[in-house]
């Protein structure tokens, strides 16, 4: 027999090996040479943390007790992976697009970034997963005790062993789980270590299996015969459990925090998922291939009463195969450690992001202004969370006594985390899901789970009294924890799973239907549900635009709209990019981060930006900067970067120009028809009525006057059209002379509103902010008036809200006076935004009353006046900003 000390030495060696692998992987990634770390193979293997020690050892024990039922735990995940197209594809895309760091983050982001929801999910996850961590510690110490032999059982202090295992795991997780805060929560070292462990546990189980089938049973045929003559030789399946456990494992596979970590957060490339969709079921299939043979041989060879959970170890040991048993031990050890590491990592991310940091930030906000580097605090919070979670796991193990109560915890834990599923899937497939629905569903499901599954697992009389089991809570018969609503005879696990998930889903749906989501929730809902529509353009050169827009919206939230726009416009000008939004270059991001950090602290700002920007190029850049190996490499890469930026920009400008030209030529054709229509229509009336006047005898005086005035009116209309055309061509050729005059901006606006509203039948509510500063202007007031009238008339014509409304706001910035026209109509589509200031552009083709020249004239006028006019990107309504240079605005009196 191998001594325990030998085994501990082997384990330590193995652990040192894992540390080394993780260390070199991190170093390679930091040098930007970590491509191989992120292969589909590594991704698939990392998914194997689904197979914990509970499945490594427990599956055989499970098979020895209940035959094929163990396999349901693998069938569910296999179906989910095979059916990746349905749910996983979307989940991974959403996780990547929205930079979700955990299940809690995903759910809270979907429901309007609700931190309350994140906290609830975090607490539920900790309660659900901690016992599971305890189970892993138990399995390691239990397997260790096998080697110490029955007589030496006292020589190994199980609790002390568990303590050291927990301690080692905590060190590993802290070292490799919290090294880099920023790089999208990805952990190369951890991932590669668990991939190696995945290989070890598969090889170990296969080795034991091969030994059992060919070494003991003597081949496949004899093995099959032995299976059929064994105590589990007949198909004896509880049908409800077969279905419920398959469904439960599928649900848990999607909702487990650690699975989310490896499947979504650590995902480098969506194509890896496609490969894993069949490769991971293959892994699971291989993991369960020899479970039944090992169980059968174990039942046959081992003395009655021995623990079937440890057949994987005891069968080789009883045959004197110490080496094989040691390998098998390492397999179990790998299963336990990889699960604990990733689960802890996932939970600690949730804890620090959703519990510790918000508390810390709000505590700090009362004192001095937040300043300095908050990143240290985040890392500290995460490390503390890791220690706390592993500590909790250890304590749970310690106080549950490491007994049988733990064995059942695997399925119970699954049922607990499966409660996340309705809120998760509902959130990504149904736009109507609301925050309150999710919250209510989670709380109800979790409560039912605690009452029907977690508490009864401690046995009658432990937490719930025997009376409660027999007569229900407070003596209410239909509240019996194992027979809710008086329905008896259901298997306890099936009972708890069915009721908790059904009630969870029902409450989630009903509350969602009756509550109304907040705007941010609706926005996020749309982005989640329609993630494929949005993110198809998030590829290629559009990606830059989309990211800039995201950055802009985020910056507006923190700095305020005005400052954000100034910042972005200045950068766009510096980069020489046409329009509002600059390229998200490295330099600009750093600049932006510093700006944001001044308001909310560096870590938050950093996390915000890296969440928005993400992308491999950024993190590799950052890692290279961190490594800082030599200034030369850095400078060289900077130059390359600048060059490639420049190329991208040129390509984009060319593309923009080309698109514009194509659109313009199409528009020009349309314009010719349009101008023909505009000229011929008044001409028709003129001709027709003049012929009537000429040819009709005995026409009354009233009619004569009426027809003459129609001719007159139409002639004026013709003149106006020609005026517009001429006006534009004069403005464009720069031959215009300005009538400079002084006046109050307020007066000009008042006059414009009056003029515009006098000529229109459609009602438009115009709102001015009464408290605005009086601004005296020195400019061409008539021209300015013309611009204002045009904007108001446009709102009158095109604002399609039920109660059209136009807000006019005047604000002063350091360099300009801005007059903002904000209506509540449908926003102009982004692709039309670039064109509306072009001549002949008509966004709404149905109405024939304009020739599409108004905004083009406005733009020309504003250019002549030394200002500009823009359409700002917004989420609702249309916001036109007329900007006058500081020179035009005289100091207020």
């Amino acid at each position, binding site marked *: 027999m191998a001594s325990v000390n030998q085994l501990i030495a082997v384990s330590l060696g193995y652990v040192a090996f894992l540390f080394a692998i993780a260390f070199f992987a991190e170093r390679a990634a930091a040098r930007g040479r970590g491509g191989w770390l992120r292969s589909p193979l590594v991704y698939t293997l990392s998914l194997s943390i689904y197979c914990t020690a509970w499945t490594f050892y427990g599956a055989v024990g499970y098979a020895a007790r209940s035959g094929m039922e163990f396999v349901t735990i693998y069938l569910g995940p296999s179906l989910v992976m095979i059916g990746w197209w349905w749910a996983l594809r979307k989940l991974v895309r959403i996780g990547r697009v929205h930079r979700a760091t955990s299940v809690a983050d995903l759910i809270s982001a979907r429901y309007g970034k609700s931190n309350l929801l994140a906290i609830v999910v975090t607490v539920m996850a900790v309660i659900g997963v901690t016992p599971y961590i305890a189970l892993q510690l138990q399995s390691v110490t239990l397997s260790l005790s096998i080697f110490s032999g029955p007589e030496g059982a006292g020589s190994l202090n199980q609790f002390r062993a568990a303590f050291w295992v927990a301690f080692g795991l905590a060190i590993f997780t802290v070292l490799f789980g919290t090294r880099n805060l920023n790089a999208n929560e990805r952990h190369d070292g951890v991932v590669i270590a668990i991939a190696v462990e995945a290989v070890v546990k598969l090889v170990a189980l296969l080795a034991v299996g091969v030994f059992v089938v060919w070494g003991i049973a003597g081949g496949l045929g004899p093995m099959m015969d032995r299976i059929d003559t064994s105590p589990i030789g007949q198909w004896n399946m509880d049908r409800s459990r077969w279905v419920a456990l398959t469904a439960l494992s599928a649900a848990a596979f999607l909702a487990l925090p650690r699975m989310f970590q490896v499947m979504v957060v650590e995902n480098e490339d969506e194509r890896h998922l496609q490969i894993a969709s069949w490769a991971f079921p293959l892994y699971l299939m291989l993991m369960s291939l020899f479970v039944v043979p090992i169980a059968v041989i174990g039942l046959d060879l081992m003395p009655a009463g021995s623990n079937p959970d440890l057949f994987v170890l005891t069968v080789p040991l009883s045959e004197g195969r110490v080496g094989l048993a040691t390998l098998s031990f390492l397999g179990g050890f790998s299963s336990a450690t990889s699960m604990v590491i990733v689960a802890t990592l996932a939970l600690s991310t949730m804890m620090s992001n959703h519990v510790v940091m918000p508390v810390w930030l709000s505590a700090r906000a009362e004192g001095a202004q937040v300043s300095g580097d908050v990143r240290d605090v985040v890392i500290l919070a995460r490390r503390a969370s890791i220690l706390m979670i592993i500590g909790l796991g250890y304590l749970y193990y310690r106080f549950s006594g490491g007994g049988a109560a733990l064995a059942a915890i695997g399925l119970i834990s699954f049922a607990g985390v499966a409660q996340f599923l309705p809120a998760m899937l509902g959130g990504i497939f149904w736009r109507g899901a609301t925050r309150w629905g999710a919250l209510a569903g989670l709380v109800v499901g979790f409560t039912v789970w605690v009452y029907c599954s977690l508490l009864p697992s401690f046995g009658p009389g432990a937490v719930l009294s025997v009376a409660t089991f027999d007569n229900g809570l407070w003596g209410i018969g239909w509240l019996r924890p194992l027979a809710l609503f008086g329905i008896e005879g259901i298997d306890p696990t099936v009972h708890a799973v069915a009721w908790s998930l059904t009630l969870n889903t029902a409450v989630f749906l009903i509350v969602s239907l009756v509550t109304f989501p907040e705007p941010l929730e609706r926005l996020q809902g749309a982005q989640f549900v329609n993630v494929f529509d949005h993110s198809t353009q998030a590829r290629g050169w559009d990606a830059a635009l989309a990211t800039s827009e995201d950055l802009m919206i985020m910056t507006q939230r923190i700095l305020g709209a005005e400052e954000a726009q100034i910042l972005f416009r200045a950068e766009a000008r510096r980069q020489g990019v046409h329009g509002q939004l600059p390229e998200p270059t490295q330099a600009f991001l750093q600049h932006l981060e510093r700006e944001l950090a001044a308001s909310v602290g560096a870590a938050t700002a950093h996390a915000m930006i890296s969440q928005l920007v993400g992308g491999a190029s950024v993190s590799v850049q950052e890692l290279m900067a961190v490594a800082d190996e030599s200034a030369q490499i850095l400078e060289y890469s900077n130059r390359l970067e600048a060059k490639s930026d420049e190329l991208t920009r040129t390509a984009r400008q060319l593309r923009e120009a080309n698109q514009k030209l194509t659109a313009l030529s199409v528009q020009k054709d349309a314009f010719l028809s349009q101008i023909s229509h505009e000229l011929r229509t008044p001409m*028709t009336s003129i*001709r027709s009525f003049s012929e009537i006047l000429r040819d009709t005898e005995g026409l009354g005086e009233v009619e004569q006057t009426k027809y003459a005035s129609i001719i007159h009116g139409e002639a004026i209309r013709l003149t106006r059209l020609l005026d517009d055309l001429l006006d534009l061509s004069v403005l464009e050729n720069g031959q215009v002379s300005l009538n400079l005059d002084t006046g109050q901006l307020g007066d000009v606006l008042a006059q414009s509103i009056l003029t515009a509203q006098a000529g229109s039948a459609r009602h438009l509510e115009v709102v001015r902010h009464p408290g605005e500063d009086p601004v005296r202007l020195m400019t061409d007031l008539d021209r300015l008036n013309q611009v204002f009238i045009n904007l108001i008339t446009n709102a009158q014509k095109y604002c399609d809200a039920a109660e059209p409304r136009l807000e006019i706001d005047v604000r002063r910035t350091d360099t300009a006076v801005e007059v903002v026209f904000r209506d509540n109509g449908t926003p102009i589509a982004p692709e039309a935004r670039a064109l509306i200031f072009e001549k002949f552009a008509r966004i709404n083709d149905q109405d*024939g009353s304009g020739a599409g020249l108004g905004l083009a004239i406005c733009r020309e006028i504003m250019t002549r006046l030394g200002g500009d006019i823009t359409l700002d990107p917004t989420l609702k309504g249309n916001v036109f900003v007329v900007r006058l240079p500081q020179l035009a605005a005289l100091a207020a009196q």
Partner: protein
Amino acid sequence: MGKHVLLVEDELNIIEAIRFLLSREGWQVDTHSDGATALATIKDMRPDLVVLDYMLPGKSGLDILTELRADPAFQALPVLMLTARGQSRDREMAERAGVSRFMTKPFSNTEVMTAVRDLVQLAQ
């Protein structure tokens, strides 16, 4: 004559002119100015002649004509189409859609009246 004409047109002044010309000759003139609902009105009123504008708010005259001709009951109904767009392609499209007569604005009053008389005679 007491004939019934439906005028589908959105320019008030042109409506006024054509109404004057036709009612002087004893036509009963009804008007409709929304493209989207024009088809239903035509089918509803069953006029003896339709004067149809090419560019209408809601739905173009061409679309209305195409849909009208799809109904066997209205394949023989005389339709005079007016357009201000002045592109030869429009005329081809209208003829393919089954227009009875196609005229470009601005028109002369006598031209319109001759066309109306011809169309009614042809239909009888």
